């Protein structure tokens, strides 16, 4: 191993100093940091609301919050976590950082628009702050009419306008990615040589571009309807509340894939590196991302089986919802097959990936329960639904986000995070997660409805388990925050390619990328994940030697 004790003289982080060099930057890597800081703040804001919810549910009668405060807390939790954390999470941070590096370009196609998208995000976030300061919002994150039109006494207009504004940040990010992936790939980087993260982000961007504007116009209509007192959605004024639900879920179901698809891309990258194998069935995994994006547009009705929908429409939506599980299953099976006869090592990113595989599978399969019309009659609006989507969103998307942040941290900062702490917190997170959310499947199946601040005493044991789990989960989230911040200053200097991973972002940028990424435009001559095929025993020997050094070994001369 060649020890590299110092970072290069010039890199993107010291290319300029002072607030202007950050707030007016058009460098995609710095914008990734702007987003990373912003969404981390939002994550802990949303997490704080969640923690209050769990505290309230510790006892059947709920001692902590007044009923309407409770409603405001779950609304805040949902709005912040979905619109301000999960939607931008991987695309705006890792995606911004990696897309140009992975295609071998100097920047995204539209660097200024990229910066504008962050400012739009911040304006949206200020709306949320305004809502909190003006007393909160109690409609639930779905803004269902007529709660949001006639019955809400809170600042719905600000919230809908905030979501409207925010949507454009998401649209602009998606637009930038699609153009960059289409037009700015380095010589030799054909479509089927692209890393799977790019395929996933491409599919995500399609959804962002085509679905977000529908949510935007829906939010405008709610705001204007409240202003003018005209019934587009409010039944008392001749409007149609089901229409609202259709328009809302036309965005918000595909939005689930905005949240999970980038995570799936990260999983493909990490799993192939830590299994030292090309992702099994690369082309199928690549195309399945597009299939998910396309089918994802056709299933929104499964949120509305009990809202008033003809059984024929319901059956159609149910059938397509089953079909959309197929590409997800293709991915899961192929990841598992990638592990088969791979030489697997268990560093922190891989631990998160393994956590993802288990939790995403449970989340995905319980999604099928909810996609069937009959069972959904029983499970609709219960904690079963809560558990299902937290398994996908937290167990899936957030786990993948953490895997990615740890995996690319050396490239983003030039320093290693402390591996032992990383593994420990990955384990804590996994245990805390299971303890928090698994009981909710049972609670929901037994009939505990969502969004109530009180419950019957029989449900207390499971609720206590869930709340206890959430404290462990909180520890699992705070720990990475602390040691990542620590590592910014004190972390060991990272070598250019600490994982011996494949991909332009590792192989062609040096220890930490320069301001314009590549000294010379790279040329791609091989497929993605072209890890050398070597006898497992040999790799194991090297790895054991590496363990003795306390660091993952460099693999082989041929790398």
């Amino acid at each position: 191993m060649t020890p590299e004790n110092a970072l290069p003289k010039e890199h993107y982080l010291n290319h300029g100093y002072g607030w202007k060099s950050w707030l007016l930057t058009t460098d995609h890597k710095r914008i990734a940091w702007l987003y990373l800081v912003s969404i981390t703040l939002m994550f802990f804001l949303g997490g704080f609301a969640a923690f209050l919810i769990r505290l309230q549910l510790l006892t059947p009668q709920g001692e902590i919050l007044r009923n309407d405060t409770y409603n405001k807390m779950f609304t805040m939790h949902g709005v912040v976590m979905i619109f301000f954390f999960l939607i931008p999470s991987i695309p705006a941070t890792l995606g911004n950082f990696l897309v140009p590096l992975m295609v071998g370009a100097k920047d995204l196609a539209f660097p200024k628009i990229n910066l504008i998208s962050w400012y739009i995000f911040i304006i949206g976030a200020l709306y949320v702050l305004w809502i909190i300061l003006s007393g909160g919002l109690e409609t639930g994150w779905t803004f269902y009419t007529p709660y949001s039109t006639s019955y809400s006494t809170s600042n719905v207009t600000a919230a809908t306008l905030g979501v409207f504004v925010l949507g454009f940040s998401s649209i602009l990010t998606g637009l930038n990615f699609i153009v960059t992936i289409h037009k700015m790939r380095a010589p030799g980087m054909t479509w089927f040589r692209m890393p799977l993260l790019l395929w996933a982000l491409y599919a995500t961007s399609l959804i962002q571009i085509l679905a977000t504007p529908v949510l935007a116009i829906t939010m405008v209509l709610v705001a204007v309807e409240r202003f003018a007192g005209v019934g587009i959605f409010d039944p008392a004024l001749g409007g149609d509340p089901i229409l609202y639900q259709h328009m809302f879920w036309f965005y918000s179901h595909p939005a689930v894939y905005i949240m999970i698809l980038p995570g799936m891309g990260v999983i493909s990258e990490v799993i192939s590196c830590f299994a030292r194998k090309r992702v099994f069935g690369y082309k199928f995994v690549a195309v399945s991302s597009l299939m998910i994006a396309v089918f994802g547009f056709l299933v929104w009705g499964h949120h509305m089986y009990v809202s008033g929908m003809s059984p024929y429409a319901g059956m159609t939506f149910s059938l397509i919802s089953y079909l959309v599980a197929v590409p997800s299953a293709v991915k899961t099976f192929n990841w598992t097959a990638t592990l088969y006869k791979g030489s697997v090592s268990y560093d922190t990113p891989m631990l998160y990936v393994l956590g993802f595989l288990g939790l995403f599978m449970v989340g995905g399969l319980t999604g099928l329960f909810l996609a069937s019309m009959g069972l959904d009659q029983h499970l609709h609006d219960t904690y079963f639904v809560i558990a299902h989507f937290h398994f996908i969103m937290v167990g899936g998307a957030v786990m993948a986000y953490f895997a990615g942040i740890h995996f690319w941290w050396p490239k983003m900062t030039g320093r290693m995070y402390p591996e032992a702490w990383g593994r420990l917190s990955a384990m804590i997170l996994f245990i805390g997660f299971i303890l928090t959310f698994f009981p909710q499947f049972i609670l929901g199946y037994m009939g505990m409805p969502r969004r109530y601040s009180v419950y019957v005493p029989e449900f207390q044991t499971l609720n206590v388990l869930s709340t206890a789990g959430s404290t462990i989960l909180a520890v699992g989230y705070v720990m990475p925050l602390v040691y990542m911040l620590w590592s910014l200053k004190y972390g060991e200097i990272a070598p250019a390619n600490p994982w011996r991973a494949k991909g332009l972002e590792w192989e062609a940028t040096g220890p930490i990328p320069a301001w314009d990424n590549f000294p010379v435009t790279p040329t791609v001559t091989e497929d993605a994940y072209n890890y050398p095929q070597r006898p497992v025993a040999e790799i194991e020997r090297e790895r054991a030697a590496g363990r003795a050094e306390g660091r993952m070994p460099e693999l082989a001369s041929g790398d």
Partner: protein
Amino acid sequence: MSAHAHNPAVLHHFADAEQQKESATLGMWLFLATEVLLFAGLFLVYTLFRWKVPYVWVKESYLLGITLGGINTAVLICSSLTMALGVHAAQEGKKKALIGWLLATMLLGATFLGVKAIEYHEHWEHHKVPGLNFTYTVPYDNAHPYKVPEQQVFHFLYFCMTGIHGLHMVAGLSILTVIAIMAYRDKFSTTYYTPVEMAGLYWHFVDIVWVFLFPLLYLTGNHYTGGH
């Protein structure tokens, strides 16, 4: 590194002028796709209510009158022609012609907005502005002798759709102003006129939206004869 470093029109992060142009074009089309879906939400609401209460749609549409809307349609179609001629002039590097056609396009666009303002004023005088001043026509007609809330919905949608379209016109005019100034300052050449083309795409899109709005809002009631 390469020759393009001397071409000020090619930004640092693009490999060459062609890549830059293709990126801009694709980006613009994607943006227009977003815009299509934004308006699609409004068209969906329109369709649903028209299907639910066709008689309201016919009569309220009749109240709009077609004269001013018709004039505006003609104005916008002409402006698309002048815009296309402007892009053509840019391709051939004819600066004066480009600026002339851009100004003509802007004049037509401003005319459209002026006529629209007159129309809005008329709606105000006729008490057809939902939320601010709206009077139901009662009795509605022989078959439906009571006021129906969907009357307001029609005008509400009318204002939403034409209002959002109007905002796009204002945005278009601002863009054309910038393009005209750039043209005046010799920013374009026969090899670099992408911004003119992009502005043209946007302008045509806004025109096309109107081509759908006009029949749906104005012509739906054209054969209304005043009750059964």
